[in-house]
């Protein structure tokens, strides 16, 4: 699959809440086909303390506007700088990177996301809808003030909410949400992206109930395109590269 390193133009920077914002980025040439679960490597110019690129999942693709969006959580220097970008600014991306979620054209699917890990699920919902599948979403947030975009997700499927403090939706971790606690679990496949602990918990729960599960890992990356071997995770085939063989893995294959 051909990959590109190009200057995108910032066409929008929308703050969702204190720690999260969405960057809309317009490509300089028509976008190639992009798959849900793929990511980009962002070059954070103008930041003396960010030497390497920063990986971010593709949150949404709008081929008509020729844009892709990133949902970014402010963590350190790199994400902080990205948050200060204004429409018209340039941002260099290497893309599209990684494999993708599997894309069933039938079946009952549950998309589970937590925090900034919800990022790839919007695009996933869109693509599934286009294939004629309406998934359910189970989204976890810290608290009500971080819950956002529920309306947008609702367009693609039914949304279940959890918050750590119970200020909106169910209280507690996503794995405590009734929708995922049902037995038998009425889903054919779970797709999960979020903090490591959450992905482990969901994977375990799914395995216990005999439901297939895919997770999108967020290992530290140097290159993002398979040449440095820094991002590996142990699988049934030995150490595999999260940036090439992943970021999406069938949890049954992982030894984490």
């Amino acid at each position, binding site marked *: 699959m051909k*990959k590109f*390193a190009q200057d995108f133009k910032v066409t929008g920077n929308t703050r969702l809440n204190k720690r999260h914002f969405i960057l809309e980025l317009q490509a300089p040439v028509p976008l190639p086909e992009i798959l849900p679960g793929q990511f980009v490597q962002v*070059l954070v110019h103008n930041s003396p303390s960010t*030497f390497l690129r920063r990986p971010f999942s593709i949150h949404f693709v709008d081929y008509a506007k020729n844009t892709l969006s990133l949902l970014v959580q402010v963590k350190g220097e790199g994400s902080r700088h990205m948050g200060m970008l204004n429409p018209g600014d340039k941002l260099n991306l290497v893309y599209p990177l990684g494999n993708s979620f599997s894309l069933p054209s039938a079946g009952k699917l549950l998309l589970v996301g937590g925090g900034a890990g919800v990022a790839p699920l919007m695009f996933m919902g869109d693509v599934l809808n286009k294939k004629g599948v309406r998934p359910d979403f189970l989204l976890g947030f810290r608290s009500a003030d971080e819950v956002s975009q529920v309306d947008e997700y609702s367009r693609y499927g039914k949304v279940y909410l959890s918050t750590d403090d119970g200020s909106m939706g169910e209280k507690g971790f996503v794995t405590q949400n009734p929708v995922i606690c049902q037995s038998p679990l009425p889903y054919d496949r779970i797709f999960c992206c979020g903090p490591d602990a959450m992905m482990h918990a969901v994977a375990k729960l799914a395995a216990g109930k005999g439901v297939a599960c895919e997770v999108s890992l967020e290992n*530290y990356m*140097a290159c993002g395109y*398979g*040449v440095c071997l820094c991002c590996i995770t142990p699988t049934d085939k030995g*150490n595999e590269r999260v940036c090439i063989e992943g970021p999406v893995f069938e949890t049954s294959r992982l030894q984490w």
Partner: protein
Amino acid sequence: MQFKNPVTTASGCFGYGEEFKDFYDLGLLGGIFVKAVTGSNRDGNKYPRMAETPSGMLNSVGLQNKGVDHFCSSIYPRLKDFNTQVIVNVSGSTIEEYVKVAERINELEGIHAIELNISCPNVKEGGMAFGVVPATATEVTKAVREVYKKVLMVKLSPNVTNISEMAKAVADGGADVLTLINTLLGMAIDAETQKPVISTITGGLSGPAIKPIALRMVWQVFRAVKLPIVGLGGIMNATDAIEFMLAGASVVQVGTANFIDPMVCPKIIDGINDYLDRHNIAAAQDIIGALKVC
């Protein structure tokens, strides 16, 4: 041995080249130094394997590769028709392992040179141990020289008191070309968790942070030993590459920069040509060691 231009890619920073086909025509490159190959399969070190540092990074990959048999049977066939020089980075833990790998690579018609990696700081036994003591460096070079009939490059470790002495040691062992430098041994700590950032605690420092040290070593070795030098360490652009050539490098390698900009090598090739034009210099080789010191 001919390179179509002096810009090549550093071992461990370009995989086996194939991933970069998604970005540009590999035929543009002077050469590709592929990832380390060892006697048998190695899983490499545990994750996490890298840390970002000021103008650089630490890595501790630990020579992950599927071994020389797999290289010859499964990887070589995909590389042999690349329209550029492909050089294999040969690593090991014992002299026997180096010799075994070199012997096997010697059989591969499309490979005209190996780069003996006696400078990897990220494996417990072997690796750097061979590259910091002159006598052992001579010994391993000599042993490989006996079985390897084509161009033998030896990649030196910068983690030494006297780089010229090491260069002489491998020259004595029969090296044809010297590559310098490999990474400097470094460490990163996460103050919040109070833990080392990478699993092996220490790792190899690369990137622009080390460029002044690399340049100095190339210049020292250029004046001490009469062998061609492949220079690297922190090259990010054409100006950096030219500095290494002025200091004495015949060819340069680009490592970490490939992670920041996958298109960096073609840009460096163009930039060197611009520089030569601008300065009315006929060919890149005219600037090798041309530093004006008066």
